């Protein structure tokens, strides 16, 4: 009886979670510009538009460049902090950790305003580098948390074992720590990448009128010129997402990456 209730409960939530996706998919496949219910006719033209229309394709390119750059930056900031904290346990590393996580836990509009003020003050604004920097700092929290989680699973004694076997600090890092932590670095990068692709307000406030990312273009379209290409973009986003996380799940241990203790390693 309770089994049935449980499945029912999860099923309902699953349906609600997927409802908007279904809607969007419906719009993206709609033959005409305006969605009606029930839909009339199907077509893939809106998917073609993403690449055919220079506005949308340009926005896609911008988003991808920004996402890649900022995710890489986030990981490069997070890794030394996490490693320092785990290996040397100095208080300053803890400070850096807190500072690194803070931008992400605050309402993004605050960081957006802060970046806007900063970039206008130094008079370098509206350029792609601005939003890459802003996102990079904003998203540092994600690889910071995933890499810290990964380092937890490296026993200190493994490092010492490596040393007694003749490896100096750099070699130990390269041959012991890094291979174990690499999946967590990748998942941190993936999270940051996805969130950067989706991020609106920081991108808008720092470069909104000069560099159009996909979320900015979508919102503009929502307000000022509706087009179903928004929906097809959304579907592509979702598919890419599922692909990335599906790959991580396939090759890695997803529950462990998200914080569960696997029964494999006690």
């Amino acid at each position, binding site marked *: 009886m309770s089994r049935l209730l449980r499945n029912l409960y999860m099923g309902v939530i699953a349906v609600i979670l997927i409802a908007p996706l279904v809607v*969007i998919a419906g719009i993206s496949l709609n033959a005409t510009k305006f969605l009606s219910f029930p839909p009339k006719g199907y077509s893939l033209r809106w998917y073609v538009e993403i690449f055919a229309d220079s506005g949308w394709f340009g926005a896609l390119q911008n988003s991808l460049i920004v996402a890649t750059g900022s995710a890489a930056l986030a990981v490069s900031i997070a890794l030394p902090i996490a490693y320092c904290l785990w*290996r*040397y346990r100095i208080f300053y590393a803890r400070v850096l950790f807190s500072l690194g996580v803070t931008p992400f836990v605050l309402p993004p509009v605050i960081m957006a305003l802060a970046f806007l003020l900063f970039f206008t*003050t130094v008079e370098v604004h509206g350029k792609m580098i601005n939003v890459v920097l802003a996102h990079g700092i904003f998203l540092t929290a994600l690889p910071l948390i995933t890499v810290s989680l990964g380092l937890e699973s490296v026993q200190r004694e493994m490092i010492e074992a490596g040393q007694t076997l003749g490896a100096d600090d750099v070699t130990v890092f390269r041959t012991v720590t890094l291979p174990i932590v690499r999946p967590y670095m990748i998942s941190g990068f993936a999270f940051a990448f*996805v969130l950067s692709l989706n991020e609106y307000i920081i991108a808008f*406030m720092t470069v909104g009128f000069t560099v159009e990312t996909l979320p900015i273009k979508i919102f503009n379209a929502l307000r000022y010129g509706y087009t179903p290409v928004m929906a097809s973009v959304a579907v592509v986003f979702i598919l890419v997402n*599922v692909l990335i996380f599906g790959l991580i799940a396939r090759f890695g241990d997803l*529950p462990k990456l998200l914080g569960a203790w696997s029964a494999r390693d006690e």
Partner: protein
Amino acid sequence: MASVAASEVSSRPGGERGRWVLPIFPTVMIGIFFVVPFALIVAVSVAHQNPAGYYEPAFELTHFRRFLSSIFINTALFSVGVSALVACICLVLGFPFTYFITRLARRHQVFWLVYILAQLSLSEVLIAFAWQVLLSKTAGVANILVWLGLLERSVSFYPSFGAVLLALTYLVLPFSVLILYPALSRLEPDVTEAARTLGASPLRTFFTVVVPILRPAIVATGITMFVFTLGAVLVPQVLGRPSHWTLSVLITDQAIFQSNMPFAAALAIFLLTLSMALVGVTMWINKRAEIKT
């Protein structure tokens, strides 16, 4: 057992040069691109706003006073209220949901996790868009209700408070699952099994064993959801009337469209203080939970 007390790191032969070199890059980046911008907000919030649309360095508290006047304080109260409501709903819905996921076999867990993670691909703008359609007159849920005979005519369910609430909950729910997941999956089954052998039904076990043990995680998640909801800036605009605007929307409006940076900064300070206080409470709770275990 070879154990070094956590607070004391003994040196070893060969030294540890890494600990001085490694923090340099992060320090520089965070210092320049986080600390400085932050300081700027504080500085600008007390600057003087020239009516022509730019600000000059000064020290005045006009903006804070203006904030405390009725219109703007109402927005603040609304923000706090709706965020609290969303946080509660997320906990009520998300906690059992996550709990069930963690009790499943590993393969099924992975399925649900990917399912939830896929929701992350829906940014706020897409969620606003999707719910706008779902709640619209021509293509929305209303049409299904008409078809089922529950409604006479199709209506638009937005702009309305309900629409904003619904979309905000939808926006934030996946995060609650992801945050609760580590804590819930680390809960040993022995504890619940012990309760069951002592005669408690699954429901009773849930409320008298699982929930109390995980109270710190629940509270922390609730607070995090609160802060996340405070950050929503598009959903209130798309699905609500100006009376449903949150502080975040107001800040954006003041900064970009009213060109009043100092006022926007003052509002941001308030939002910041509120958020940081809550984050601080969360960390305090976690610390206390750590000490207890």
